[in-house]
């Protein structure tokens, strides 16, 4: 029988959990970014897209459960890994001269919490507003008919406020850094060792990371400077 606990406790197993959960979340950010592009097509396109996502409630629920599970696994496993690595080097070097690691690999512990904070605030901003209002922003409204929120209105009113707009831009740059290292590491964590396969997989993932971060940043900037309203 497969001993899940034993795999999770091992360093390679825990990293595989990070890779798989990260891959699920990564995939979600790609779809999410593509969906966001509807904003550029105008209010109707965006709200139709929002309504489309809510069309099959069961599917939405399953998606949310999968994403939440992946997120929890990613965060909890990361806490274990950070503890393991802190224990592995109790005494730090006096001089540290990095060579070989990248800026984004070394900043995973900064970009991770930024992304997590962003996810929480983003959900509070735009997803969980059951009465059509939101404690972070009182001007949110439901669409005519009562149940589907006016996503376009909510998004543009939120991001046209400078502080929120700038935060969304910075958070998506942080997301980009995080995905960059993810693209680099996840295939190796899962055992892809062929140079060619690894090269192609990483190139594709890096391209997607740039697209996700870039697409979202462009969108937030467009709303922030008033190109989309």
């Amino acid at each position: 029988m497969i001993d899940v606990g034993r795999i999770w406790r091992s360093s390679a197993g825990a990293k595989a959990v990070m890779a798989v959960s990260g891959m699920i979340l990564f995939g979600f950010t790609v779809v999410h970014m593509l969906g966001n592009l509807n904003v550029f097509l105008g209010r109707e396109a965006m709200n139709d897209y929002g309504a489309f996502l809510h069309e099959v409630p069961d599917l939405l629920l399953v998606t949310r459960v999968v994403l939440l599970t992946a997120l929890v696994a990613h965060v909890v496993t990361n806490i274990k890994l950070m503890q393991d690595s802190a224990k592995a080097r109790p005494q730090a070097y006096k001089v540290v001269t990095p060579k070989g690691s990248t800026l984004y690999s070394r900043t995973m512990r900064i970009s991770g919490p930024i992304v997590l904070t962003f996810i929480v605030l983003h959900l509070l901003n735009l997803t969980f507003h059951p009465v059509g209002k939101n404690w972070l922003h009182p001007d949110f409204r439901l669409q005519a008919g009562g149940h589907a929120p006016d996503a376009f209105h909510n998004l543009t009113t939120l991001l046209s406020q400078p502080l929120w707009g700038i935060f969304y831009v910075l958070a998506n740059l942080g997301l980009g850094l995080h995905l960059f290292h993810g693209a680099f590491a996840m295939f190796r964590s899962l055992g892809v060792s062929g140079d060619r396969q690894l090269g192609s997989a990483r190139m594709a993932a890096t391209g997607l990371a740039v697209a996700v971060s870039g697409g979202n940043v462009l969108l937030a900037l467009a709303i922030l400077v008033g190109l989309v309203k």
Partner: protein
Amino acid sequence: MKITLQVWRQADKSSAGNFESYTLDSVSEHMSFLEMLDVLNEELSVQGKEPVAFEHDCREGICGSCGFVINGRPHGPNPKTTVCQLHMRSFKDGDQLVLEPFRAAAFPVIKDLVVDRSALDRIIQHGGYVSVNTGNPQDANALLVSKDDSDKAMDAAACIGCGACVAACPNASGSLFTSAKISHLALLPQGQPERERRVVAMLEQHDAEGFGPCSQHGECEVACPKGIKLTNIARMNGDYLWAQLLGSPRVGGSADGG
């Protein structure tokens, strides 16, 4: 040339250490780094002080005995070079060098720059071998190995077990060492019968020794004096997951001895 050293001095495993400063006024650029330390130790001995302890054996870059951290780089600044093969011409007059032992919970300091690396030996004991039946040797050409596999296995087998990968890793992971020792057997036909059992036992021993997890930073690959590749870690990860998720039932790590 004049070199100022800040050296980690620690009397034994249980004492607290500290940095001591030494200045050498006439270092020859032709000296190896260890010869420079020999000169320092000669001076210290004459003054009746305790010489700086550091490990060394072949001084040819092949035994894996030497190694400490110079200004944040294991084995110093030069690529694919052990500290015994590092020469003072790589530094310039007036340089200040901080010498620290390899820092890892799994590598306790024995004295000054000498650390106990027997954790690496224990990882090997947990499966870094092949079991071969005795009897007449078979024909050398009976087992065919592809050139590609043979090259990769030989590259992995070049690991001298110095521990620089652990020293360089931000997580103090021994994954590069462990994966090299697993890979050079996993790529060859002789390593196949014990492949699954080996990867599980060695990787779990690596964790039990207190080495950290691999975050794929790539610091180890750059620090390695033998150019061991990060792809070995990917192969180890894949083998471990395969063995645990899809492999045949196998005994636990402890049944492997050691």
